[in-house]
């Protein structure tokens, strides 16, 4: 498409054309109305003047006869700017007046008519036009009185010229304005198109230019940029996941394959085969779990799980999870306590339970105090305390906080952001079983509910908190109530 072609195809230009057309139509009709009215007025004026003169002349003819008529006519005809006069005999011969020639047949028809004429004293051969009135006098003589239409014509010419010029100006200005606006818009649109094409070509970091005027195009550009931001983040996430999947799922798959190969290669006893098969199943179960966790995270992140939300109390979730994991913690030499207050939530109960379960599993796995900091005097209050994991459900302003606090080594501040990412297993956890997806899922669940996963220092230890906005209206209602805090020791 040529540059001009593009220009005239712009909405701005087309709108300008439409306005131009409307405006020209308006101007033309205004001028037309003006011209028509002027013409009518001039015609009326001529008619009145001519009628009056015909009256006067007829009167003179009646009183003074032909002679008086001729005299009057001659007199009047000689005045500067005189009207047109002509008197003819019944044979059609001109006997008085200032008209040299007329269109044929005009004198024969009585009443009003428009005709071409030439004055007697005029030397040039140009015809003029006049509005004339022919009256038949008593004895077959005919009288013509008329007025030149030059004035009317000139006025018409002025109007026509005005119309021409104004139309020309309107069109030039309109087209110029249209092209100016269209080019401005087109330049910006072209810039946007260029950027989007670059983005489509694969450069996701490109952003649309945003002007400072804050007009509709800027707002559009801002919104598109926000959308691109989100798309880029999602794409990055996707890429990261696929990289991680490739890496973290290939490892167990390779292990699985090697084990099967090894079992095939050496001729073992049935018991050995059985053992190899059992380990294969175990390994594939682990893989399935990892896949499920990944799918769950993907679903939570894409917002698909929003469909299955209901109202429940965060305290019930905290108590339920404590109840489920308390024996496991105890087996590991730790205590799992819960401290709750009524925390109404609107969300996916199953997902929130799972997120909290993941946090508790992490706390049990990684939250054991380091041997070095453990006091030697066994049974001291500090030692007992440091082996405690606390699940808490409480309200903080318009947020519901579900937190799990341990007194283990914690996560260094610099690693916390990193720890939430998929498959990331911090140095300390490499030796422990697990998929590295627990915190990612918890974080995705928090995000799904419009909240976030916070990792804080518990001095010492880690405090992982699902901070979820309380459902609208509930926080006010609860503020009026006295908090019912129930504590339950494991």
């Amino acid at each position: 498409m040529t540059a001009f072609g593009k220009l005239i195809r712009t909405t701005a230009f087309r709108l300008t054309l439409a306005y131009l057309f409307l405006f020209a139509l308006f101007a033309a009709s205004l001028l037309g109305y003006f011209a028509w009215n002027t013409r009518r007025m001039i015609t009326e004026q001529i008619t009145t003047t001519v009628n009056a003169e015909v009256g006067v002349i007829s009167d003179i003819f009646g009183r003074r006869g032909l002679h008086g008529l001729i005299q009057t006519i001659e007199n009047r005809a000689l005045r500067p700017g005189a009207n047109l006069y002509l008197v003819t005999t019944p044979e059609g011969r001109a006997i008085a007046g200032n008209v040299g020639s007329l269109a044929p047949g005009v004198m024969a028809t009585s009443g009003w008519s428009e005709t071409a004429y030439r004055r007697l004293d005029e030397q040039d051969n140009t015809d003029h036009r006049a509005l004339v009135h022919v009256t038949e006098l008593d004895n077959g003589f005919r009288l013509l009185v008329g007025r030149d239409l030059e004035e009317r014509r000139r006025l018409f010419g002025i109007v026509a010229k005005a119309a021409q010029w104004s139309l020309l100006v309107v069109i030039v200005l309109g087209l110029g304005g249209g092209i100016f606006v269209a080019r401005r818009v087109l330049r910006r649109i072209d810039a946007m198109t260029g950027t989007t094409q670059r983005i489509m070509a694969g450069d996701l970091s490109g952003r649309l230019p945003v002007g400072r005027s804050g007009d509709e195009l800027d707002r559009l550009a801002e919104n598109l940029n926000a959308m691109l931001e989100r798309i880029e983040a999602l794409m990055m996430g996707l890429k990261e996941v696929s990289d991680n999947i490739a890496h973290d799922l290939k490892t167990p798959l390779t292990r699985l394959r090697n084990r099967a190969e090894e079992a095939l290669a050496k001729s073992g006893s049935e018991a050995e085969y059985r053992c190899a098969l059992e380990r294969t199943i175990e390994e594939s179960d682990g893989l399935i779990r990892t896949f499920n966790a990944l799918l769950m995270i993907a679903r939570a992140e894409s917002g698909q799980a929003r469909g299955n939300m209901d109202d429940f109390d965060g305290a019930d979730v905290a108590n339920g999870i404590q109840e489920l994991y308390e024996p496991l913690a105890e087996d590991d030499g730790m205590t799992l306590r819960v401290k709750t207050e009524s925390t109404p939530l609107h969300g996916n109960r199953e997902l929130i339970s799972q997120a909290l379960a993941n946090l508790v599993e992490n706390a049990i796995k990684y939250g054991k105090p380091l041997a070095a900091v453990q006091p030697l005097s066994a049974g001291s209050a500090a030692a007992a305390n440091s082996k405690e994991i606390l699940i808490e459900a409480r309200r903080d302003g318009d947020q519901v906080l579900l937190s799990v606090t341990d007194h283990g080594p914690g996560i260094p501040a610099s690693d916390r952001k990193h720890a939430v990412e998929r498959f990331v297993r911090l140095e300390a956890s490499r030796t422990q079983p697990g998929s590295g997806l627990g915190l990612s899922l918890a974080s995705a669940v928090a995000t799904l509910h419009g909240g976030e996963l916070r990792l804080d220092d518990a001095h010492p230890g880690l405090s992982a908190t699902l901070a979820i906005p309380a459902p609208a209206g509930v926080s006010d209602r609860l503020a009026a109530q006295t908090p019912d805090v129930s504590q339950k020791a494991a």
Partner: protein
Amino acid sequence: MTATDPQMRLLIIEDDRESADYLVKAFREVGYVADLASDGEEGLALADSGDYDVLVIDRMLPKRDGLSLIGTLREKGNRTPALILSALGQVDDRIKGLRAGGDDYLPKPYSFAELLARVEVLSRRHGGPAEETAYRVGDLELDRLSHRVARGKDELTLQPREFRLLEYLMKHAGQVVTRTMLLENVWDYHFDPQTNVIDVHISRLRSKIDKGFERPLLHTIRGAGYMIRDGIR
């Protein structure tokens, strides 16, 4: 592993030839009479005419999907227990499946042990007696009304959750119950814990009901789950 009733009749509705053949073979090996339908319409016709104890239905089927099949059966008043197999393993898919009239939902991939355990529980539910007020396995007694548990002459003190765990196990005495079944039915969670959290609860329960007694009642079934039963069958 053997089916409790050798005459148990099972209908498998699954379009994937390989998994269908595997299921039919596996169920026949444990003593089931297993029929196969490979699409939704055929499945509906068979399920409607045959007298089956359990239906195992793939969620996505040609001609008529699994959920609509169950819905149609239920409308006709056919209440044969149905277990839905699905590649969609998420919580809301499960809820959709159960709402459509399914009795249980098992996401793919599953282990045969898990499927078998669930099918046995379903068929028992279908043909078995109504909920009893008391269960008895060997000399272990559980009274659901008074919440009393006793082994022989010894009164046992159980935590509420331990009581519910034992109640579920005893209700399905002689049948394998898997860890997932316990998590679903006793705790009402449908996620998959990464740790052996159920095993710890079982070992606590075991220490209360079996410790100090000559004959253990609560058995671990390797690769499958747990079973409470008296003696060796």
